[in-house]
């Protein structure tokens, strides 16, 4: 059996012919944007939350990343955050609210707190829930109606996805990160290449990733259209889990560990599809277009739409180049930037900040660039400050902010002005994603840091560290 099959079987509440399977949900994470209408629905139907003890909330999408002792200027955002607070109080749900020490981006704090565990089914009203699959969990995003469904029943009807193995060979070279691996995969199979599939990432390169690297990889699964992405649990996973606040302890830990060790695909497991990637051949990647599949290695150039295989692809490329104000065959390393954003559930953990700080140390950002670093949680922020990373960033001219989703989607005031070009460690480069008319290029934290300093994209493999 595949890991996915094992997780699926372990959570079946009810199966019936010609119906979706009813699965039990071990962990339900909520945030302020996709939950208000779900709670309203509960109230209207006179229903309670079935398992408030398995439900945890945080405010992350809408929160300002500037001084949080001040009231939120945006009245609608303030209302939405207050609504979450009221709903959690009313229904007895633990909330890591805006000024609590555990607050942060939902997919950063879940693992940090040890809420995310191997073998779990985990859902959240957010497509990057796939992040938690890094722990050998079945984790996926759901819409608000499904949030209501889980609140009311702690179950979710699901049609079984097909399985895809992404088999990596070799090791990622120096300067090439989990983010680049993720972009390479999406570039290879396309933004709908995994639609209808759950991806399991396997192979040496994946085994060699830290938990944070695996989280980055699984996070981006949705950008290939996957239902979920996962990495089988191993010693790296168990070491990360040990001692975390909500992780099992004592005898419960021993029992959990025994079970977790079974959570891997059998050697003879058959996948519906296998995609192979030679990790050792990869470079840092940079997106050039308006979806994550429009991506190339940093040493290459913006493609020429006339080389596209189909008319539709050609038109899409032309439209993307027009929006991004890029000419065909421009060298990626000749593209100048206005902004840099290091943050998001993809790349705002402590290792991401360390990697970026290593690049930044001793340098200053280019005079034409303004740059933000938004740690993924208060925990990450505190650790970074303990290590002096905040000083490295500030001295280099980066703004050091409070935790939140921030410029990944620009729901709070951190947005691009029309026409601004941004090197971003986030996960989507759709038109207007970071602000109407904003031009997003997705890269790894090291690449964003290097671009901020040079004022244009550069191959960080050649970086002169100081």
């Amino acid at each position, binding site marked *: 059996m595949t890991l996915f099959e094992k997780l699926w079987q372990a959570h079946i509440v009810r199966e019936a012919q*010609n119906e979706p399977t009813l699965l039990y949900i071990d962990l339900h994470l909520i945030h302020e944007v*996709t939950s208000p209408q779900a709670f*309203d629905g509960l109230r209207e139907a006179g229903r309670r939350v079935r398992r408030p003890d398995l439900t945890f909330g945080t405010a992350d999408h809408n929160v300002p990343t500037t001084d949080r002792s001040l009231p939120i200027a945006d009245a609608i955002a303030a209302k939405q955050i207050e609504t979450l607070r009221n709903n959690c109080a009313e229904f007895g749900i633990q909330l890591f609210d805006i000024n609590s020490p555990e607050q942060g981006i939902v997919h950063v704090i879940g693992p940090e707190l040890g809420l995310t565990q191997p073998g779990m089914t985990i859902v959240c009203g957010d497509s990057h829930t796939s992040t938690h699959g890094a722990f050998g969990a079945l984790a996926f995003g759901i819409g608000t*109606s499904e949030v209501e469904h889980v609140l009311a*029943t702690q179950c979710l*009807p699901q049609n079984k996805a097909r399985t895809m193995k992404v088999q990596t060979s070799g090791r990622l070279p120096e300067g090439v990160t989990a983010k680049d691996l993720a972009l390479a995969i999406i570039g290879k199979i396309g933004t709908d290449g995994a639609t209808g599939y759950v991806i399991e990432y396997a192979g040496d390169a994946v085994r060699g990733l830290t938990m944070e690297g695996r989280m980055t990889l699984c996070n981006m699964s949705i950008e290939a259209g996957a239902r979920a992405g996962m990495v089988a649990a191993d010693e790296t996973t168990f070491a990360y889990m040990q001692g975390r606040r909500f992780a099992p302890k004592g005898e419960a830990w021993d029992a959990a560990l025994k079970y977790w060790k079974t959570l891997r695909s059998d050697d003879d497991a058959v996948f519906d599809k296998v995609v192979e990637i030679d990790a050792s051949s990869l470079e840092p990647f940079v997106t050039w277009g308006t*979806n994550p599949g429009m991506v190339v290695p940093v040493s290459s150039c913006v493609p020429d739409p006339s080389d596209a295989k189909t008319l539709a692809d050609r038109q899409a490329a032309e439209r993307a180049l027009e929006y991004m104000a890029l000419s065909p065959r421009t060298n990626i390393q000749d593209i100048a930037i206005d902004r840099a954003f290091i943050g998001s559930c993809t790349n705002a953990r402590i290792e991401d900040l360390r990697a970026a700080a290593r690049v930044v140390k001793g340098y200053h950002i280019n005079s034409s660039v303004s740059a933000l670093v938004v740690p993924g949680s208060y925990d990450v922020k505190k650790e970074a400050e303990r290590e002096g990373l905040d000083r490295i960033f500030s001295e280099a001219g980066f703004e050091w902010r409070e935790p939140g989703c921030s410029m990944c989607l620009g729901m709070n005031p951190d947005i691009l002005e029309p026409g601004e070009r941004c090197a971003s460690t986030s996960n989507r480069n759709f*038109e207007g994603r970071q602000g109407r008319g904003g031009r997003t290029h997705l890269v790894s934290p090291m690449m964003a840091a290097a671009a901020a300093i040079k004022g244009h994209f550069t191959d960080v493999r050649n970086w002169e560290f100081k």
Partner: protein
Amino acid sequence: MNPFTNHTGLVVPLDRANVDTDQIIPKQFLKRIERTGFGKFLFFDWRYLADGKANADFILNQPRYRGASILVAGKNFGCGSSREHAPWALAEYGIRAVIAPSFADIFANNCFKNGMLPVTLPESTVGEIMQRTQENEGYKLTLDLNNQTIVDEIGLSVNFQVSAFQRYCLLEGLDDIGLTLRHEDSIKAYEATRKN
């Protein structure tokens, strides 16, 4: 939930692939805590220019497509964010069904939860429909969920696939949560096997 049995409506062709949910409903409108009020913000950045004036070039703004209730689009429609605000915006705007060669999973699922029908047809058929829409002002389609057919007034007749269960729920306008709660015994039985 409003049932969907059959629907005849004006078709509007959005000839783009990979239309993502950020386009369908941009993030600034997700701050609302209500389920309603999203229709006027549908495709906001495409429908309106930066100065707030209507973009005459955008297909939904063209007079011949006013009142359209069936959207035809390119592959991978609704990719990106899980925001259910996307089908809410479409439904409130008046769209009852979307036809495309493929849909993103979460978006398609969200449509079914809101009485909207996402119809998957082969790329060539979608292309044919787009062409007929562009060539025939006032072009309409009739979608019959019961028989799983789509016809127009000029000879097109195609079948479409849809999962039996989703079809049943949509035809009856069934409440998903109510259905699950019918299996309370199974849920309790499962919970009894858990450590917590």
